[in-house]
């Protein structure tokens, strides 16, 4: 079981959107995915409710309803029951010390950030915490203006790249809110759209990062012998 966490210091950066897109793409690839929504706004939970309302089968991605202080116990439970391949955790915008424990449990941490000065000035605290956790992390530039040569984006990417890896740039596209409103993702709502292409590309990166951190359980040599 692997854990993908979306961490941020500012709200509204699109972390919940990225979480549902990544989780759904992982599920489409055959992974058993569980969302964990620790954000009091519960955007991810509400979207998941819209998505699964009336569903008869156990949905994939599923959603674990847990309080923040019970999360690590829930993760251990999921690991012990081998019921999950990937846990996608969305947390509130915060650098509360409690999040450090969750970060240390994560395999990969994604930090969404918009190309604005306000967002960049809020970055050091969250990056500091992620680095203290010592986990693999990457930035995603979100809600970037569309267009070929946007100065804010062109300047932001190299600045982020000096600090850490940049997983990708996600533009501000109408497909995201439109898909979210009906409990879908951009890749499902408009499979051939630009938003879907960006998300697929981002998942290729995130999935590769997760695979780097994955080590299959040792084979049962006794059984072979």
């Amino acid at each position, binding site marked *: 079981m692997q854990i993908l966490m979306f961490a941020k210091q500012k709200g509204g950066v699109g972390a919940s959107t990225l979480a549902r897109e990544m989780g759904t793409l992982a599920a489409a690839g055959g992974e058993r995915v569980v969302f964990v929504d620790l954000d009091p706004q519960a955007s991810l939970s509400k979207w998941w409710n819209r998505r*699964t309302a009336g569903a008869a089968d156990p949905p994939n991605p599923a959603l674990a309803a847990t309080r923040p202080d019970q999360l690590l116990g829930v993760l251990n439970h999921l690991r012990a029951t081998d019921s999950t391949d990937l846990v996608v955790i969305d947390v509130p915008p915060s650098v509360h010390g409690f999040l450090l424990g969750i970060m240390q449990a994560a395999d990969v941490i994604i930090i969404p950030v918009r190309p604005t000065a306000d967002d960049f000035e809020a970055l050091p605290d969250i990056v500091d915490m992620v680095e203290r956790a010592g986990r693999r992390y990457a930035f995603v530039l979100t809600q970037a203006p569309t267009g070929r040569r946007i100065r804010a984006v062109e300047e932001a990417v190299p600045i982020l790249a000096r600090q850490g890896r940049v997983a990708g740039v996600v533009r501000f596209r109408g497909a995201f809110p439109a898909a979210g409103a009906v409990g879908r993702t951009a890749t499902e709502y408009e499979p051939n759209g630009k938003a879907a292409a960006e998300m697929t590309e981002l998942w290729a990166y995130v999935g590769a990062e997760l695979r780097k*951190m994955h080590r299959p359980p040792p084979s049962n040599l006794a059984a072979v012998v």
Partner: protein
Amino acid sequence: MARKPQTELPDVFAKPGQAPQRNTPIEDLPKPAEPAPAQPRAPSGDQPAPAAATPALPVPAPAARPASPPRAVPPPCPAPSRSAARGVAMLAGAAVLVALLAPLLEDDLLGHYGFATPAFRAQHETALMLSRQEQKLRELEQRLNEAVAQLTATSADLQQSAMRSTDGVAWGRLLSLGRVADALRGPTPFAVDLAIAKSVGAGIDEFQPDLGKLSAYANTGVPTFADLNREFRRIADEALRPGRGILPTGLVRRLTELNQWTSSSPPPADPTPELVQSATARLNDGDLAETIALVRQVSGAYQGAFAGWLQDAQARVNADALVRRIDRSLTALARELPR
């Protein structure tokens, strides 16, 4: 990827369409104690999450608290007895004693329990520094011994070669000069190589002015570009990040200035952050000389921080130039040798 069978979900999962629409704000949780620094963890998909002060599963919804029984009225406090007063006086005395001794015991006591006081940290860092210096000295001594042993062997070979060949002296010059150049290329001490080169008359005198500039590094070696690169980043981080910030303030300000919606912010008064940023870019390009030129322009407040680095970097530039000259000389010497 093949779709895996969805197993029966444990009760921790929300029912479709019925996930709670409000979670406990993290800020309402008690702030946990600062955990130990993260240990490097082998990548694994099957390790348990770190232990935390969390209750074990299953995770039931918090049950309604039963109505509490009427609170009993506590009995009135008895008047303090004389023995109790004596006990209080002894406790107060002990407290005064602890308070008086605390400054003396603070560092050892707190250090014993893993609390780093400033004095404890300073002591620890000094011990660490001494240990590193001792280790470096041991390494240098070992290198020196190895170099002497190798040179002795080389000299013996050279003597044999000289006996075998009338061109032995030329070979000796070539080899000894080559050793000096090799030592200058890396962070290796070159005092012994230099002495050998002088003793075999390798024509080292022609390089004496340049070697004089590097005399301070003869016993320690000239730092390599990689060392300088690393050291520069460390100094730049320390000098330009007053708080615990991660992103250099200069980078953030640069973005702030570049974004149209914040273009009204005033230009920076101190050019140092920009200079350091440009210097970092030059360093990334491998242009050490240009980096030095930029760093020399930093404002007075930062000059002290970069002074040692500048000296080392200039030594590396000088060493590289000298190596190029020696290489040319070696090529010329090699041409004189019989084929």
